[in-house]
């Protein structure tokens, strides 16, 4: 099994805080990797460095055989990594469809001439994209499929999460980064959401997922493997059960608690 | 349901419009006035408006007058763009026969083409830029007040007579200030006694002049000539004092206003200024004008150009009385105005419709009043301007 994403000696500090400290991490294709650790252990920073929001101070990142160290957010997305955000970052005034289409950027023709002058062709592309988006939304919540042109602002948290995940999935990425999908939702809602994600994954086999999550139930249920971070360093790795048993890990959590 | 009140209102409105419209279609004649009613020089505009209004009131009070006059007043804000818009509005309104227009040169020069385009006869009552009448030869455009050329000749002459040798020029960068700078420099050069040691353009809304004045202070001129309007005139004069500049302050018609003296208090003392036409109070008509004006209890004084506005409007009304409310006839009649009596003296239009004003009044501020130079204690030598020989 070849590694889809590899990070070597990845470091990032803010002022005095060492958010990532020589982190080595590899995800193999088609696996679901759980990234866990106490608050401020560098999970989200890892995502932000990978997706080009921050530049790493040191270290290298390989994705799908290419060096993507400090590549721009755009390049990363083009390469096939898309993500969700810890605090939902949808464009609230825009419709469900619009929000999903933002995620579909790389599959939409962006030329001025095409968009302004060739309305017929545009309409075809629009209708195709609409069908895709609708199909995807139906997986998560058929109820939403009929409300594609309503503003997101009016939706409850769980639906917003769903839309956000659809936005990340619509471009059929190779790697999906989920940043605390359970945040702000009840236990059942989270479970429901996870099932939907797995369902989507079944459909397109080669979807690899890294998930940052505090709900250990979720981690246990869906991840093949876990990496535990503390102070930006990897302190344990392996199936959930084994890492959960790991003394160092427990200490880290208790220490943090 | 919601729209019914609107419709009702509309219908009502229309009926009202029609009836009122019908009511004043009778021998009522509309004439126009344009001046700066808002902005920094609005006092002069309001003074002019009141004076023109006075002319109309007196005429309407006169049983012998053939028509009942209504004066349409528009505000040019002393801005060319606004002026062009309101001028278009007035000229485009066929019911308005003629107008007394503009105190600010920048607005007058901007609108002459409009008046020409619409064949609308106007008499300029305050703006002094020569180009207004002389750039083109428009039959529609006339002016009762003189141009800045005459006053600058007089100005340069007095400066030289008083034995001043060096002059620093400050002018606002509007056409008004630039024009003054140009004609004053020419006039001074012609006499060839005093020379200009420095020229400074300042923007019309400028607040702080210390930088310019400090430069001037280094040049140490006998006189500071100022081509601009009251608001910044006041600022420059008081900031001269701040920097301890002793030179005499020599202004133009633009500062001949009570606002200037109010704005400076004692500092205004000894300021020179020039204005075309004899001072109203010196003329028989002038006394009459002042009395009537005060009788109306307007909340602004007529200011320096009120009499001209009064004269301009008076002339318009005379002409309409004579030839009837018809623009073409009015223009034709205004084409040959000779030695027409008015409260600003005899009015004669040259072939450009420019009143060839012989008299220029020299003013100096003495004890908080603009006093005619020749009657002033400065002329008699009782007091001396700074550096006066």
């Amino acid at each position, binding site marked *: 099994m070849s590694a889809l994403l590899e990070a070597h000696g990845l470091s990032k500090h803010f002022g005095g805080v060492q958010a990532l400290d020589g982190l080595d991490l590899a995800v193999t294709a088609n696996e679901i990797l759980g990234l866990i650790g106490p608050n401020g252990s560098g999970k989200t920073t890892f995502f932000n460095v990978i*997706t*080009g929001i921050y530049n790493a101070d040191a270290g290298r990142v390989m994705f799908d055989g290419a060096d993507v160290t400090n590549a*721009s*957010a*755009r390049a990363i*997305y083009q390469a096939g990594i*898309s*993500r969700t*955000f810890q605090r939902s*970052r949808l*464009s*609230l*005034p*825009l*419709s469900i469809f*619009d929000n999903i*289409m*933002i995620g579909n*950027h790389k599959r939409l023709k962006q030329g*001025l001439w095409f*968009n*302004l002058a060739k309305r017929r062709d*545009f309409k075809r592309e629009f209708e195709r994209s*609409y069908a895709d988006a609708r199909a995807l939304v139906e997986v998560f919540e058929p109820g939403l499929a*009929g409300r594609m*042109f309503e503003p997101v602002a009016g939706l409850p948290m769980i639906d917003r999460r769903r839309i956000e995940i659809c936005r990340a999935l619509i471009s059929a990425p190779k790697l999906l980064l989920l940043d605390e999908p359970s945040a702000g939702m009840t236990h059942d809602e989270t479970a429901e959401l996870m099932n939907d994600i797995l369902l989507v994954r079944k459909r397109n086999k080669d979807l690899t997922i890294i998930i940052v999550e505090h709900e250990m139930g979720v981690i246990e249920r869906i991840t093949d493997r876990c990496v535990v971070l503390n102070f930006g360093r990897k302190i344990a790795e392996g199936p959930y059960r084994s890492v959960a048993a790991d003394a160092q890990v427990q200490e880290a959590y208790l220490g943090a608690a | *349901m*919601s*729209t019914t*009140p*609107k419709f009702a*209102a*509309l219908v*009502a*409105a*229309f009926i009202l*419009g029609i009836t*009122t419209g019908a009511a004043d279609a009778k021998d009522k004649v509309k004439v126009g006035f344009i001046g700066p*009613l*808002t902005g920094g020089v609005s006092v002069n505009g309001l003074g002019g408006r009141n004076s023109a209004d006075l002319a109309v009131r007196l005429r309407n009070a006169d049983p012998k007058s053939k028509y009942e006059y209504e004066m349409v*007043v528009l505000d040019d804000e002393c*801005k*060319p*763009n606004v002026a*062009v*818009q309101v001028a*278009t*509005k007035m*000229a*485009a*309104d066929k019911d308005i026969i003629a107008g007394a227009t503009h105190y600010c040169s*920048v607005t007058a020069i*901007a609108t002459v*083409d409009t008046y020409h385009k619409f064949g609308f006869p106007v008499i300029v009552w305050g703006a002094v830029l020569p180009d207004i009448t002389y750039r083109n030869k428009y039959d529609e455009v006339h002016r009762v007040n003189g141009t800045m050329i005459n006053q600058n000749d007089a100005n340069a002459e007095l400066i030289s007579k008083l034995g001043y040798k060096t002059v620093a020029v400050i002018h606002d*960068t*509007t*056409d008004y200030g*630039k024009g003054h700078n140009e004609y004053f420099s020419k006039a001074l050069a012609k006499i060839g006694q005093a020379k200009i040691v420095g020229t400074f353009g300042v*923007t*019309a809304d400028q607040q702080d002049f210390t930088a310019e004045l400090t430069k001037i202070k280094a040049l140490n001129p006998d006189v500071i000539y100022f081509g601009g309007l009251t608001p910044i005139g006041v600022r420059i004069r008081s900031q001269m004092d701040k920097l301890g500049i002793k030179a005499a302050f020599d202004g133009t018609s633009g500062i001949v206003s009570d606002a200037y003296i109010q704005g400076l208090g004692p500092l205004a003392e000894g300021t020179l200024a020039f204005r075309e036409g004899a001072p109203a109070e010196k003329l028989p008509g002038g006394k009459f004008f002042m009395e009537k004006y005060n009788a109306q209890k307007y909340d602004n004084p007529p200011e320096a150009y009120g009499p001209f506005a009064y004269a301009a409007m008076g002339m318009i009304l005379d002409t309409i009385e004579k030839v009837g409310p018809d623009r073409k006839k009015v223009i034709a009649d205004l084409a040959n105005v000779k030695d027409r009596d008015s409260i600003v003296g005899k009015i004669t239009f040259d072939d450009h419709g420019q009143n060839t004003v012989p008299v220029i009044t020299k003013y100096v501020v003495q004890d908080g009043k603009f006093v005619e130079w020749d009657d002033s204690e400065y002329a008699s030598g009782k007091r001396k301007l700074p550096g006066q020989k």
Partner: protein
Amino acid sequence: MAEKGHTTVWPGIAGLAIATGYLIAMLGAEKQNLIIILLAAGIVAVLAAGWLGLLETVSASFVEHEDALAACAIGAACAVAAVFHDNHFVLLLVITVLLYSVATLGLNVQFGYAGVLNFAGASFFGIGAYTSAVLSAYTSVPHLLVLLIGGLLAAFAGSLLLLPVLRTRGHYAAVVTIAFALLFKTFLEVNDVLGGPQGMQVKGMRILGWSFNDNIEIGKILLSFYMNYFVLSLLLLVGAFVLVRRLERSWIGLNLDALRLDETAAGCFGLDIVRWKITAFLIGNFLIGIAGALFGIVGGFVAPNNYTFADSLILVSILLLGGIGNPWGLMVATIIVVVLPEKLQTIQEYRFLLYALMVIAVLLFRPEGLLPRPVRRYFPGWRP
């Protein structure tokens, strides 16, 4: 929401008809008391309509049947012009409305969609106007081409600000354009080449020997020469409207919204922030410039005072009054902002005061503007 209630075209047509009738009455009114009555009636009616939810019905109908209603709107504009066919001044007002609408459409692309602040709208308008002044004075460039050049120059001048505009955000971005607005006006005032504060005359338009500045006589009827400009301005507005609409209803419009609402997220989904900001800024200034170029010719006169910071603010206030991002809204707002102070000439000295108070009231009680922007419909009336 449009998804559910299938509104017919009629509420839209009715609303348009009433509005047109009202506008004609307003423009025609001369007597002060009449104007006041009309104004009051208008406000009451609008409030009542809003209270009865009629406004929503109307705007819903506009969302559903936009193309049809747009055609009607063009008709309405022509109707207004027809009524005042020989009234120079009213036509000038109407033209002013049309061209200001074009300019605010441009501003709308920049601010309403891309979120790029521009407090120098009047300056770019002025660049267009001065272009036509200079070109018509010193060259014999065909006048339609002059308009185009005006637009291009405005866009070019805008591109000088690109670096600071792109690097700054929010209030910091505001100061860049504010500084430019002040700089531009002072510059016009102090340099003599462009006539200084004196300004410049602009020659009337000529296209293929047809002089726009002559009145037109058809049999007995005399049409004001402004009719020429009216037609041209209307065409320009229609063009601009179609452009902006298509822009909004395309992936580009989506991109602009996305980067306005959340640059970081947009970046994470491959949006080229810089490219789209530049696109929006240039297109916006181009529209403003063209409008300015034509307006300069119509007015026949350009001067620095036309293009002050205050005028830029009026443009921005139009945007907010109308409802940011909604072309229909901003056309309504333009009508109000241009026509009202003009009509209030009768109470000369107090009109600025009243105007300001009115804007404050709107911002307080209807912060999202008169006609808030509806969700994007890529094809009006389209259903899966």
